């Protein structure tokens, strides 16, 4: 048997984390991207830079600050404790929050590009055809931005699957709770169990290749249906 039960659990947990994170990111990222694409405010550049920070920061830095703020003395920790939720460090919920921060730019930037490419014209046409702004967003912007949403979802999902540093900082290595595939590979290497590491690592290479292949194929198709 190439994969142990612990490996399976880790893969499943990874997929669960990535799916949940992607859904949350699409919900949070869409309004942020819409605002960044439309605003003329001076806040656009500082906010855009903050969203892009995870692109350049070492994951350990994000993980460190999240660990501190979600800990018993941090502001998130204080909030969750006052709500009776305890602290989020070393929990699955903590991992989800960390992943949302970590993968945010991978979702916001493709969406922002898509919204900017659409421009004002289709919205103005919709307005003169009696569609209110919400109506126009759902019937014109969403369908026109579909390739952007697809790219955002794939990148957000894949990037969360590949995360390691943030998980290790705030989630630790708890089997079935916070032990994701990348951490499990690390465990195998630590215990000199290279054969097991190969199976998981090879699986992730194949997975990443397929995701990127899907992404690039989707891009070239875009031209055909536009």
């Amino acid at each position, binding site marked *: 048997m190439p994969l142990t039960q612990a490996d399976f659990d880790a893969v499943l947990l990874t997929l669960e984390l990535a799916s949940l994170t992607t859904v949350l990111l699409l919900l949070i990222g869409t309004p942020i991207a819409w605002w960044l694409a439309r605003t003329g405010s001076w806040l656009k550049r500082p906010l855009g830079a903050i969203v892009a920070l995870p692109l350049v920061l070492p994951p350990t830095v994000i993980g460190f600050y999240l660990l501190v703020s979600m800990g018993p003395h941090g502001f998130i920790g204080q909030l969750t404790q006052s709500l009776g939720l305890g602290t989020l460090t070393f929990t699955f919920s903590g991992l989800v929050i960390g992943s949302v921060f970590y993968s945010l730019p991978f979702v916001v930037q493709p969406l922002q590009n898509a919204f900017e490419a659409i421009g004002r014209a*289709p919205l103005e046409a919709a*307005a*003169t*055809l*009696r569609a209110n702004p919400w109506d126009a967003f759902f*019937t014109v912007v969403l369908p*026109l931005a*579909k390739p952007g949403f697809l790219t955002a979802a794939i990148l957000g999902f894949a990037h969360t699957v590949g995360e390691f540093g943030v998980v290790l900082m705030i989630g630790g290595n708890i089997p079935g709770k916070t032990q994701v595939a990348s951490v499990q590979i690390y465990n195998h290497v630590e215990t000199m169990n290279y054969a097991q590491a190969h199976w998981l690592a090879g699986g992730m290479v194949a997975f990443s290749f397929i995701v990127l292949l899907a992404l690039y194929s989707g891009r070239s198709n875009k031209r055909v249906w*536009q």
Partner: protein
Amino acid sequence: MIWPLRRQPAAIQAVAGLGEIRGRFKVEHADFILDVELHLPGRGISALFGHSGSGKTSCLRCFAGLDQPSEGYLQVNGELWQDSDQGIFVPAHKRSVGYVFQDANLFAHLSVRRNLEYGHKRIPAAQRRIALEQAVELLGIGHLLERLPGNLSGGERQRVGIARALLTTPRLLLMDEPLASLDLKRKLEVLPYLERLHQELDIPILYVSHSPDEVARLADHLVVLEEGRVQASGPLKETLLRSDLPFMFEEDAEAVVDGSVSHYDPDYRLLSIRLSGTDAVLQLTHAPLPAGKPVRVKIKARDVSLSLDQAEGTSLLNLLPARVEHWLALDNQAQMLVDLRVGDERMIARITRYSFDRLGIHAQQALWVQVKSVSLLASD
């Protein structure tokens, strides 16, 4: 954008002024100021004419509510759409306008049929006075319904754009240079449909154009804009003849004359057009048209010359009795524009000041006009 603190009134306010459109807009940008006051008839086609940068499109966007002028007032046939003094601004999606964009601006992800239905299904069924089939037939787009906009020609896209705007049964149809992006062949393809709109539907149209030909062919009322201000506004023929307008000083001063077909000679392919209020006829070679059909012709000032007597033995077809109204010297002081009355219609002649003095032209003088060239504008 500043969020309006005052709540918008739930319903659009009714005001006096059925049968008219009144608008006043003041828009200030760093490099451009639009400051116009318009009073337009509540029916027919009004043209907003001017060079690019004169503020035509800005003005149209204010009518649609796509731009919010800092100061403005707009009422359309008794509906109040904006009054900045009262803090009223009806947003674009609540105004009963149809907007035809310069580049059609169709939804790329929807078929022609779904584009047409988009506005149609967003108005209450009871308000729909134009059926899908009717608009499709009027614009001749029945064969395009299942196509995507990306597969249409420019002329086809523009016709779909017009049908889509019409299907919201607008109280005002706004057209932003709908022919500007088309080549001559496509223009000639779309123009007859625009004329049909005018004849078959009772929707006032505000038509933006920088083409004198389009304006002369389509409009009933003309507004001339120059650098964000109204230079002139009035019924088409009077306004075209007003000699104090900047565009009149250019090479293309012209008059538009209405008449009806009186006779057709198939042997010489010669069409005779009787002008209203006189027995005089204009003749030109043309394809056959039925007698009695109303037509509109355009006569350039440089194609009109004057003669004191009815010249015999000339190859010119068109020799009409006329009366001098008034005149004006052109900037170069070598040429004159003479405003003439032929029956109920007015024409304009451009002659040299030398000829003007030699003929001793004076007010109410009876003379003959010789028309070298006539072009038919509306023929359907």
